[in-house]
């Protein structure tokens, strides 16, 4: 795709709007999926996408396309749509500082330099590791890469030319023992080259070892527990339980939510710092957001107190705050909405050993299969758990789900360790039909009191110890 920057900027200047942006991308992708004894997918393809978004007196018009010859129609029609209904009291999307971004992902081993044969061979080697155990009934090795060229221009005279290279793998194994079937998986993905997916044999080995251990493990007994969450689960917890609550599009026009999420309100203990930062080199990295705003380090919680939130231009202006560079779209065919990037809990001052000593009896919950929140209640599913007795890890347990009230659980964080680690993968975050958006999340080990665990024998709430 060759984009005539001068031509696009000229078209932008002719748009009658308070704010407008044009985005275009061309993406070449390879996807491989191996299951136990089959090649489920081996495909390569190319997509072109583009969109025009226009704001006029409180209303957005958005038109997207997959052939660039529709651009003129999109420009005209997006203006028409933005004028469907005018609001007299609408705020103006003010002009911001213009940015010129010309970036390319740094890679050690360019994806184009690796043949499909080499990619397939490596995935077959990983699959062979997953198949080693007789207990493994099915395996999945998924490889995905993409080289995308992204262009964005807006009426602030911001121009973006970003060539990204993204690559990732995921491994999963389903172990079977009698009638019990137990899945376990790991995923690694990042902006970079083929080097990211090489030499991950240890990860494949961990997957098969964990799945086969878990299939023989007992289920967690449901009830209230004090728990230690590992860094991966701590990340999912903060993403689900608080990150989504910090997205200002849930708040900006809702007076009651504004009262609940008032800056200065205490949400956690003094040792709790929660940060979103799209400039960090993890899976949620963006050189600039899809409205042309630079990403930044945004403290959502500082010393336990609510200090900030995630904004697009629109939400920031409507709340009288600064944009934070969090307007992101899953692709050029979707409009930007407020999203997280790299979200994490910062280090505390305890050691992991101190957390276990303090826990005494409870559960050590590890990894994450997923999570969801309704902005008040949350659930998230660790990959597995360990019983902890007198501060020592004991037997492994399966089928565990953590559930609770966001506000109560944040206040119940009792101690934070000093080993923050970030995680991202081929999956991602979903919101308003835009999924999976690449994000990362992480944190240090956390000690949380009184967490409801769903598992075997639900129907009793007696505290376990």
């Amino acid at each position, binding site marked *: 795709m060759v984009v005539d920057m001068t031509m696009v900027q000229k078209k932008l200047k002719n748009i009658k709007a308070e704010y407008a942006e044009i985005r275009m991308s061309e993406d070449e992708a390879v996807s491989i999926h191996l299951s136990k004894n089959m090649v489920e997918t081996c495909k*390569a393809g190319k997509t072109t996408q583009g969109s025009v978004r226009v704001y006029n007196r409180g209303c957005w018009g958005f038109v997207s396309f997959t052939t660039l010859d529709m651009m003129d129609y999109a420009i005209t029609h997006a203006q028409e749509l933005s004028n469907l209904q005018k609001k007299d009291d609408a705020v103006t999307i003010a002009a911001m500082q213009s940015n010129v971004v010309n970036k390319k992902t740094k890679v050690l081993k360019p994806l184009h330099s690796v043949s499909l044969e080499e990619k397939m061979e490596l995935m077959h080697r990983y699959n062979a590791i997953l198949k080693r155990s007789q207990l493994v009934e099915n395996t999945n090795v998924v490889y995905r890469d993409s080289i995308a060229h992204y262009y964005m221009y807006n009426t602030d005279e911001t121009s973006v030319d970003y060539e990204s290279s993204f690559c990732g793998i995921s491994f999963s194994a389903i172990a079977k023992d009698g009638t019990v079937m*137990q899945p376990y998986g790991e995923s690694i993905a990042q902006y970079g080259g083929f080097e990211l997916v090489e030499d991950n044999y240890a990860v494949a080995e961990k997957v098969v070892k964990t799945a086969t251990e878990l299939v023989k493990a007992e289920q967690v007994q449901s009830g209230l527990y004090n728990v230690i969450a590992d860094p991966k689960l701590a990340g999912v917890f903060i993403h689900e339980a608080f990150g989504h609550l910090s997205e200002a599009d849930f708040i900006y026009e809702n007076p009651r939510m504004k009262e609940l999420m008032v800056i200065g309100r205490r949400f956690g203990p003094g040792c709790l710092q929660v940060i979103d930062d799209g400039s960090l080199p993890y899976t949620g990295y963006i050189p600039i957001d899809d409205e042309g705003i630079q990403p930044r380090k945004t403290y959502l919680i500082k010393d336990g107190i609510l200090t900030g939130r995630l904004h697009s231009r629109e939400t920031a202006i409507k709340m009288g705050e600064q944009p934070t560079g969090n307007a992101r779209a899953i692709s050029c065919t979707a409009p930007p909405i407020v999203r997280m990037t790299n979200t994490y809990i910062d280090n505390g001052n305890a050691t992991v050993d101190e957390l276990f000593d303090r826990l005494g009896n409870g559960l050590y919950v590890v990894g994450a299969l997923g999570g969801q929140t*309704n902005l008040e209640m949350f659930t998230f599913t660790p990959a597995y758990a360990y019983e902890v007795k007198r501060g020592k890890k004991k037997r492994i347990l399966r089928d565990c789900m953590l559930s609770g*009230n966001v506000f109560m659980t944040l206040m119940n964080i009792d101690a934070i360790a000093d080993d923050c680690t970030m995680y991202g993968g081929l999956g991602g975050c979903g919101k308003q039909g835009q999924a999976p958006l690449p994000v990362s999340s992480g944190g240090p080990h956390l000690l949380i009191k009184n967490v409801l665990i769903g598992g075997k024998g639900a129907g009793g709430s007696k505290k376990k110890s």
Partner: protein
Amino acid sequence: MLEAAKRNHDAIRKECQGIQCRWWDIYSNDVISRSVTFKNNMFHSARESAVQGYGIRLNIHKQTGFSYCNDFNDIQSVIDHAKDTAQYGDNEDYELPGKNGLPEVTLYDEQWLKSWTVEDQLHQLQAIIDTIRKEYSDCIVDSSAGCVDGYVYLTNSSGFEAGYRYVHHGVSVSVLRIVSDGSRIQVYESSSWGSAFDYHEIVNRLIMKLRFSETNAAIPSGNYYAILTPKAFSQIMGVVLQGLSGKSIQRGISRYKGKFGQKIFGKQVSVYDNPLENFAPGSYPFDGEGVIAFNKIIIEHGYVQRNIAHLQSSHILQCDPTGNASRSYATLPQESFSNIVVPGGGVSFKDMITQMGTGIIIDQFIGFGQSNTLMGQFSANLDLAWFVNKGEVQGRLKNCMVADDVMSMLDDTIVLSKEREWIGDSYLPYVMCRINYTTI
């Protein structure tokens, strides 16, 4: 536009016919979606999205390769990629379906489509918001209405060539109230259909659920009677149907393997996969591989009867394909249910509440399906549920979850309502059963 698709396919077919291969197929989509969105009670945005593209599948020496693109001027590079990937594809030793008579199914109402305008939708949504806010002036309503107008065209080397147009009109409404104790009540409803439908049903359901939620209730943990609304039952159905695809049987991860013909669920439970329901969102005359669509029994009176299968898994499992291959231009065919239809029972929802006496009504879960559901077990938080005592709704249950097993839950004691609702592409009744409930 079908003519345009045909012209594009003719050009691609010429290229494909020159390739030394066992078989090929070309699948294309051309879709325009239009929608208007209200946020926080106010009009926010209008959107139009046009997506077109095509995928080419080539089977060379029994190995299948695949590539896709948006650009109909770039056919040769797509063919080259498909050839490259075919070197690494699996052995797929089956034939594609040839020319066949297509079944009758009406996918959309032409007259209604002509009258559909963005401006009308804007007014309709405003009316929905006004009606709800007349009852609950403190609520915040997000809503959207849209129309997806698309074409599918499929050509293959066995002589199959056909296309169809599908149109769905959808409305979704989400109502948020934050009550005096700071708790959030978020209720959502949506509907999608190929012809006009009554928005009032959505509004009435939303208002009923907001009324049920005006006060809070609390009950101790235990095993209770529960009524699952069609929305909640659709999530349970997801677990019921897991394991009923050819792929999961072939991979050895279906809990139904070796149990076909056996009674697994209550006698009241019958499930049909019917792609020929007129105007329904999951309908089509032929699947993504050209297999003609037909109505089929999946579960009958509790007996598990059959799984769905696309060409690849039906070949491996030595059964007939069921016309359930789903694909977009950029993906290979995957097995997918069409419209899931569960026949209702003889009791009204209202009588069901009276009959239950004491129990729970469950409408919305949080995190359903995150847990390991391979064996039919699930565990999920309750986003929206109410306590019923002496046949009357007492209030909303908060800070609670349920965990159970779909096979023991949907046993011979369940009761199905005579009312059914379309939830996406599933047509489901209310279900009364027993469930394990835990409160914090």
